């Protein structure tokens, strides 16, 4: 077990290194003039040269690569052009904001999806409930998340005026950590959270339904039924055994959410990492864009690591080697 964890950790470090190398190519090699995107315009020649030295933009490509890895290993991503402060000062407070909609949204989507998916999977095959459930889930799965966002925004915010559709709090609201526990915050949280939930619900529903359909013909279900257990409880047996793939799916899904949530953060002007990435790219604030991309990639690596470790804990049949 320990050997497995160590090997998985080493693998994760390797993947992070590979992502950094890809970033090096994207930000340093691919652009015609990397100094133009990494150094601010309008610097004096000396200041420019000094910065190029500091950033390792001089010398051969290999020297540049080594300097680049060195900077990243030290967590040095430089300063944001736009905010004029270190990129991490900009990004760290945003991580919590992203997780605030990603994790509860994913869990709600999974819970609702599992509940409805069990009902659909347990329903008679080819019946009305099964067919309409599958049809609706497949269609809703095809709704792009910005369309979900736009629809929620138009109906519940601009037309009905039930929820605010912009940002995390009204002007003059509580700031700092305490803000996460105000009604105003929850009010702002509602729509983006619902958007993430709707985005994940259909996939969970279909996954759960497949699991229940596969399990309902197993022998143990016959046995439970033969014992005279009520239908509802029998369905619960099948559902419980179908949850394993759902739970292990949650971690990679979390990674995918953090990456895909970008669009929802933009629609609701939710100050998260993804929105900052888009803003940084449109403002040509490349140090910030680079750091935000790196942060998202590391989050994905960590989520996958957690998934692999949790899988073994949940399924005793998995043998670590």
């Amino acid at each position, binding site marked *: 077990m320990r050997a497995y964890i160590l090997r998985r950790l080493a*693998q994760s470090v390797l*993947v992070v290194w*590979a*992502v950094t190398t*890809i970033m090096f190519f*994207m*930000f340093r090699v*691919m*652009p015609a003039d990397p100094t133009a*995107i990494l150094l601010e315009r309008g610097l004096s020649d000396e200041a420019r040269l000094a910065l190029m030295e500091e950033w390792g933009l001089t010398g051969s490509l290999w020297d540049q690569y080594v300097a680049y890895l060195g900077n990243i290993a030290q967590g040095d991503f430089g300063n944001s052009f736009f905010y004029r402060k270190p990129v991490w000062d900009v990004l760290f407070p945003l991580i919590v904001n992203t997780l605030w909609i990603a994790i509860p949204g994913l869990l709600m989507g999974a819970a609702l999806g599992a509940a409805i998916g069990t009902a659909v999977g347990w329903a008679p*095959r*080819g019946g009305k409930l099964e067919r309409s459930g*599958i*049809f609706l889930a*497949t*269609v809703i*799965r*095809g*709704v*792009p*998340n*910005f*369309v979900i966002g*736009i*629809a929620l*925004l*138009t109906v519940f915010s*601009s*037309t009905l005026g039930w929820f605010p559709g912009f940002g995390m709090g009204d002007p003059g609201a509580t700031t700092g950590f305490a803000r996460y526990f105000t009604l105003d915050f929850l009010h702002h949280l509602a729509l983006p959270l619902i958007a993430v939930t709707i985005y994940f619900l259909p996939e969970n529903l*279909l996954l759960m339904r*497949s699991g229940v*359909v*596969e399990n309902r*013909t197993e022998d143990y279900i016959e046995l439970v039924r033969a014992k005279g257990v009520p239908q509802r409880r029998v369905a619960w047996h099948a559902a419980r055994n179908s949850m394993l793939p759902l739970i292990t799916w949650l971690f990679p899904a979390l*990674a*995918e959410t*953090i*990456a*895909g949530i*970008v*669009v929802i953060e*933009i*629609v609701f002007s939710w100050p998260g990492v*993804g929105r900052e*990435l*888009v803003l940084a*790219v*449109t403002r040509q604030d490349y140090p910030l*864009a*680079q750091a*935000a*991309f790196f942060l*998202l*990639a590391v*989050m*994905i*690596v960590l989520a*996958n690591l957690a998934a692999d470790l949790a899988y073994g804990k949940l399924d005793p049949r998995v043998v670590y080697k």
Partner: protein
Amino acid sequence: MTQATDDTAIRGRGLFSAMRDSVRLLMTDSFAVIGLLILGLFVLLALIGPWLAPYEPFKAMMTETGRLNRLAPPSAEHLLGTTAFGNDVLSQFLYGFRIALIVGLVAAVAVGFISTVFGVLSGYFGGYVDDVLMRLTDIALSIPTLPFAIVAVALLGPSIENIILVITILFWRNGARIIRSAVLTERERIYVKWARAAGASHAHIILRHILPNIVRIVFLWVTMSVAFAILTEASLSFLGLGDPTVVSWGQMLNIAFSSGNLRTAWWWVVPPSLALVLLVSSLYLIGRAYEEQTNPRLRRR
């Protein structure tokens, strides 16, 4: 065992007849038929859309008094009204079909081809090729898709060619893995061993035994790739990173959103949203039919 069955077992199956079979299979699934009908309509509109469009998509409409005809609700002259910049919504909407079709089609061909080649080589020959490919996809899978697309398109420049290139780079990996594992199971089947023993070449086995049997999985993956490609292009355009010179539905929504006209100009927002939903859903409906068929435990018993 008769001589005849022995022969077919060794000769295998034509790739085209396998493809025909898997298309015929779709016809038995009513949801997939709905998907195919919608898809067919969309392809048709993509082909003839620009001829149907009454105006140039980026042409600014003027009122009789010579002012910009902005945010006009639907009328006989502009069936779907105009945008905040006086463009005819119907014309933009109709041009949008073409770009969605191009993105989907190119991605399908590129991703389908690359994934299949890598998946088959890696799964069939195993060994060194397989190791390299698996490490490569391990890494590729930990790249956040949309953020990568955002950064890459911003750095390469927002043209439709670059967007398709980035989509291809992003989505070949999943397909290669799925096809590889399908090939791995096929390779171990007894008939492959027979064919080998009877002296069939690797090319023969791949083309006439392996490929015909994984056609459904390849089709499933291609269908999903088209959906992902269209969604990615739409998301990029919605974020304002699309090709500014071509009209796409994502771009229409981006402009409606960023100019603050979501609520007032429903005629501008609803058509592109609805088209995207219909197109992607129809692909998922088709994909689902293959999913049910490739997973034997889901087949009706």
